[in-house]
């Protein structure tokens, strides 16, 4: 039985799209005042938006790290705020105590979080599905409560376990520079994760996600791969948390350990598309920019935002970016093939529409 060759979107289109997006992100500090004359008049407004984008970059890193573990390895963590917070508190404590260079301290934040990830992974290997998720959730909660109780007396201690580490942990007053640092870290992590997930390591993780027992039967040491996924994911989440403290100038349970951070990372990943790496970036930017837009609504904005996310989850469960890809592919097929061939290609159950589950 012969089947028609499947049509693929030429990969150059994909890279062109990616390059354009990156160009846009690079140009944003200069584009914003051009597009919105308000910002030229009012630098505080520009600064606010650049800060929003900085946070969006950090959230994107967090969401990507979640995607490695949840989207690729299929280990759904509800406690990524633990790794984010470990990185964040490392930043605060180390900058106050030693005052090393931010680069070193942020890297150290990632390492501390990675150790945390490995510690969580050890018992997590015995658990599956909801039990694993619950364990990560409880671990994150436990650490948050620990910090609230311990009230570390370092730097300028705030209420409820907060550490104010200004000026030691303050990166720069230049919002544009800070945005570029965050963007650089995000792009670096995206490239790292992209390479990682397309390597044999990523393939092994996907095999574990699809069917762990079959992966073992294929000779994979699933425990080892899952542990590595936990460590790697925690490392990257820790980097983003460590940077975040350098952005806001303090570490507190509310700012870096709140469970809502975990939820937002998951929502961003799922909004953009699980198991895609680039999807979570899209999701995080969508989330943070919408949040800023809805600022006028005050506390209500989160109600609107999460309702919006619910809507997307219901209507486009595969994620917005994945949906966009499918639409692009359809358009491409319609352009370059007679109608019959398109139908055939769709009927053969082509792959590639989703790396989604």
């Amino acid at each position, binding site marked *: 039985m012969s089947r028609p060759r499947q049509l693929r979107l030429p990969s150059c289109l994909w890279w062109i799209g990616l390059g354009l997006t990156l160009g846009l992100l690079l140009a944003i500090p200069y584009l914003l005042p051009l597009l919105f004359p308000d910002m030229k008049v009012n630098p505080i407004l520009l600064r606010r938006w650049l800060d929003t984008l900085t946070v969006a970059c950090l959230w994107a890193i967090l969401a990507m790290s979640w995607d490695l573990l949840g989207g690729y390895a299929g280990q759904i963590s509800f406690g990524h705020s633990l790794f984010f917070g470990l990185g964040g508190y490392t930043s605060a404590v180390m900058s106050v105590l030693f005052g090393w260079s931010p680069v070193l301290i942020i890297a150290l934040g990632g390492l501390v979080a990675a150790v945390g990830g490995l510690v969580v992974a050890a018992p997590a290997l015995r658990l599956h599905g909801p039990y694993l998720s619950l364990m990560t959730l409880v671990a994150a909660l436990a650490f948050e409560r620990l910090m609230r109780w311990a009230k570390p007396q370092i730097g300028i201690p705030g209420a409820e376990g907060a550490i104010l580490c200004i000026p030691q942990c303050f990166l720069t007053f230049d919002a544009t520079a800070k945005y570029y640092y965050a963007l650089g870290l995000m792009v670096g992590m995206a490239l790292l994760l992209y390479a990682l997930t397309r390597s044999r390591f990523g393939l092994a993780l996907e095999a574990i996600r699809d069917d762990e027992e079959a*992966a073992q*039967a294929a000779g994979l040491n*699933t425990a080892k791969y899952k542990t590595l996924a936990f460590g790697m994911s925690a490392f990257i989440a820790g980097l983003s948390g460590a940077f975040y403290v350098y952005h806001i100038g303090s570490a507190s349970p509310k700012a870096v350990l709140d469970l809502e951070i975990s939820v937002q990372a998951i929502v961003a990943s799922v909004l953009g598309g699980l198991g895609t790496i680039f999807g979570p970036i899209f999701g995080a930017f969508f989330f943070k920019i919408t949040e800023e837009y809805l600022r006028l609504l005050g506390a209500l904005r989160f109600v609107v935002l999460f309702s919006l996310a619910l809507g997307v989850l219901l209507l486009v469960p595969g994620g917005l970016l994945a949906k966009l890809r499918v639409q692009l592919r359809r358009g491409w097929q319609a352009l370059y093939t007679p109608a019959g061939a398109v139908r055939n290609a769709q009927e053969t159950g082509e*792959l590639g529409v989703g790396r989604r589950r």
Partner: protein
Amino acid sequence: MKAILELARISKAFGGLQAVRELSFEVRPGEILGFIGPNGAGKTTVFNLIMGVYRPDRGQILFNGQDISGWPPYRIVNAGIARTFQIPRPFRHKTIAQNVEIALIPNEIFRRNPGHKRRARVRECCARTGLCRLWGHEEGSCATAGDSCACWQQSPGSLPQAGLRRLEIAKALATDPALLLLDEPFAGLTQAEVDELSLLLRDLREEGRTLVIVDHNMRGLMKLVDRVVVIHFGQKLAEGTPEEVAENPRVQEAYLAGSAP
């Protein structure tokens, strides 16, 4: 001749259910062993015990003289035993070729294992098991057609039942096993497909691999296997050539009071 695999009085219970009781048998190098029993006799449990999915409560499993009971599955696979599942379990979101490639990934993260070598082996396994022929490619053409072969683009979802069984075997073959355990490889296949698959299995034996084939009846196996082990309620009922076993009254009794197995 020294046995390649030896089960020595292994037992396994799940709660109150004694799934396998004091079971002993051996597999000789280079043979095709039929491992049969009525539904629920414990055949798949025995496979899971050998593969390290379960740990036997008592007894030893020796592979090439080495006790492998209690080893994790991946270690057993890397030692040279592979299995296929009764219900094919492909990695649904990956292509057919990637399904096979997964079995070639080393567990050492930093070991050099260039992609082109893995892919060459994938081609070999896909061609070997006739996966390419399903799309009208000539036998062995995947080896030369490279990535234009449908295996590199199609998901396992596009395979018919017989194709999924072949994929299972291709995945197992990729680990280069000395001993291959096949769990009901003929279930749900037409006679023509059974004959074709039998040819492949004989081929594998010619290569020097040892095969154990599970089935719940012997009809399809009679011509293929050298020896048969019959189990019933987790215990060994009979062992011998297919003819001997078919005439064994205890075996006939086990299969619905006298109807031929």
